[in-house]
């Protein structure tokens, strides 16, 4: 309405002619069709998913009244329906994002439902990772054919499930991890392409789901040389922080930046856990055994992640300026040194604590200097967490511990209050 009013006014004042006004209107109509409202897109995908699940529930409800043949026909019919809808979209609705996303997501779920129904009808119980693998393989092309991020997210869930589903342990976890990474790589071109679309509604979902899925990987392969998993996690989380710090992602806001949130949160959690001497004592005990693990999956994965994090840093060095956050981006390098020291001496516990305190202090300082209340609090939480962790090590009385807790709480309150007051004064 607003546009047409403006155009009328422009025609009235003879700034543009009616022909130009029509062309402008046509242009915006086309743009709107190509870039649908986020809510329409969201509800389109939700609609497809709910329809798929609804059909499944209806079938399940009447399941006992169907014969084996009818059950099989229903399962295959569900798949065929999804395929026909997708074909229709390819032929008639190629330009509609909502249709593409919804149809592709529906087919993706229809295939999953069909496979699980057939398995149940024919008493095929047992490990399902093989079927999940084929399901992933046959749904990944849909991501590209329909340029569908919703399908990419569902596929990613499938890939993660494939990696985790190993109930009978038939397949070596390292092999599974390799297949998972291969499947994930197949999804990457779509993810990278989505970055370039400025108004991609589902991009934040991908920003969260990819790092979330990857977080499972180091724990999955941890077996005989579990200590090395911490190296993997540090490198992986540092890589997340680096990716999340890229201007393209950082500019989108913190809530949409899953890489940065998970990376920073994960590193803080790791620093708190590692600030206790339990891990380091065990590392010192297992140091000789650790040397035998050099050819094992845990070591190779830690090495690969560290190499990838280093490579990423050197390739994107210009986009990652040196500041208080660099400690989180490059923390993995320092951690590897501390880890090696930890195999020889118990001084590593002290070093990791010092490292945590320096990181916390640097971020707190950055928050104070730049008047960023979020940054300030993040740094303070890291520091406060480290102090609280030390309470558990020391033999302080409960009263003293309680008083220190109260002191930390009051300290956080005062710093925030003063910061806010300062900000208000600046505004005035």
């Amino acid at each position: 309405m607003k546009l047409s009013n403006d155009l009328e006014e422009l025609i009235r004042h003879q700034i543009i002619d009616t022909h130009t006004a029509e062309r402008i209107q046509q242009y915006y109509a086309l743009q709107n069709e190509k870039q649908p409202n986020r809510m329409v897109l969201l509800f389109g995908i939700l609609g497809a998913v709910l329809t798929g699940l609804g059909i499944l529930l209806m079938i399940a409800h009447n399941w006992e009244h169907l014969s084996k043949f009818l059950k099989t026909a229903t399962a295959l019919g569900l798949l065929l329906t999804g395929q026909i809808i997708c074909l229709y979209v390819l032929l008639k609705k190629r330009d509609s994002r909502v249709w593409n996303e919804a149809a592709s997501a529906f087919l993706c779920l229809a295939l999953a439902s069909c496979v699980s129904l057939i398995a149940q009808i024919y008493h095929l119980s047992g490990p399902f990772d093989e079927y999940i693998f084929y399901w992933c393989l046959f749904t990944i092309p849909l991501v590209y054919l329909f340029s569908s991020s919703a399908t990419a997210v569902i596929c990613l869930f499938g890939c993660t499930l494939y990696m985790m589903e190993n109930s009978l342990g038939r397949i070596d976890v390292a092999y599974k991890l390799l297949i998972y990474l291969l499947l994930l790589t197949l999804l990457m071109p779509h993810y990278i392409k989505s970055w370039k679309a400025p108004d991609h509604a589902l991009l934040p979902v991908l920003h969260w789901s990819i790092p979330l899925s990857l977080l499972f990987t180091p724990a999955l392969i941890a077996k005989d040389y579990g200590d090395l998993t911490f190296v993997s996690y540090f490198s992986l989380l540092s890589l997340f922080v680096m990716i999340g710090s890229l201007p393209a992602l950082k500019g989108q806001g913190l809530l949409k930046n899953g890489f940065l949130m998970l990376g920073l949160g994960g590193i803080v959690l790791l620093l708190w856990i590692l600030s206790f001497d339990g891990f380091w004592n065990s590392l010192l005990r297992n140091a000789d055994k650790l040397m035998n693990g050099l050819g094992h999956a845990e070591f190779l994965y830690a090495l690969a992640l560290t190499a990838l994090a280093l490579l990423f840093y050197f390739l994107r060095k210009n986009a990652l300026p040196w500041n208080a956050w660099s400690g989180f981006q490059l923390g993995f390098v320092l951690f590897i040194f501390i880890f090696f020291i930890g195999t020889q001496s118990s001084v590593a516990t002290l070093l990791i604590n010092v490292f945590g305190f320096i990181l916390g202090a640097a971020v707190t300082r950055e928050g104070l200097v730049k008047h960023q209340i979020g940054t300030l609090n993040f740094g303070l939480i890291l520091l406060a967490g480290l102090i609280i962790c030390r309470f558990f090590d020391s033999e302080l009385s409960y009263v003293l511990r309680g008083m220190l807790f109260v002191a930390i709480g009051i300290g956080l309150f005062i710093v925030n209050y003063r910061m806010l007051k300062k900000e208000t004064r600046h505004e005035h």
Partner: protein
Amino acid sequence: MNTKLWFIGIFGLVAFFQILLPVRMIQKQEKILNTGNAFSFRVRPAYQDAGISGKYINLEYLDLAYLLPQGEVSTYQMYETVFLTLKNDSAGFAQIARIQKEVPKDTKDYIVATIRSIVDLPPKKLYFEVGFQQFFLEESRLSDQGMDKIRQQVDVANNAYARVRVLNGQALIQELIMDDAPLDLYRD
């Protein structure tokens, strides 16, 4: 050829493989039923209702345990995957003839299992978990009364065994026998 045709061509290929996946699953089941050897496993059944996935009988296999010969040094670990070659005992029930870490090359009568527990008292005994522990009921052929009857039958069964078809590590429950009578899944 224009882009649209390429897209439709690729989609056709993907759709074909998507249909092939469930079809191959059905074929696999038929192959095990037609060419696999039948083994009878003594079981302890338990009736289960798992909502959407349906009602089924959960089977605990009583003879899926293996005594390691005295003096043999065990390298087996919990949750390790092993291959169990089967044989029939004098009463006609399946027993574990051999345990291996590699796929047996000389027989097709083997199943894949995971070591569920290891009893360390000498002699060392291994217990296993297998993939074919759920026997889904034919809910289409049974009324509620029929289902209740099966439930009661399962609850009181003293002597139950499952007839399982085995082929190169894959196994399929063909029939469930309770107190010498097959569980009738088709009539009330």
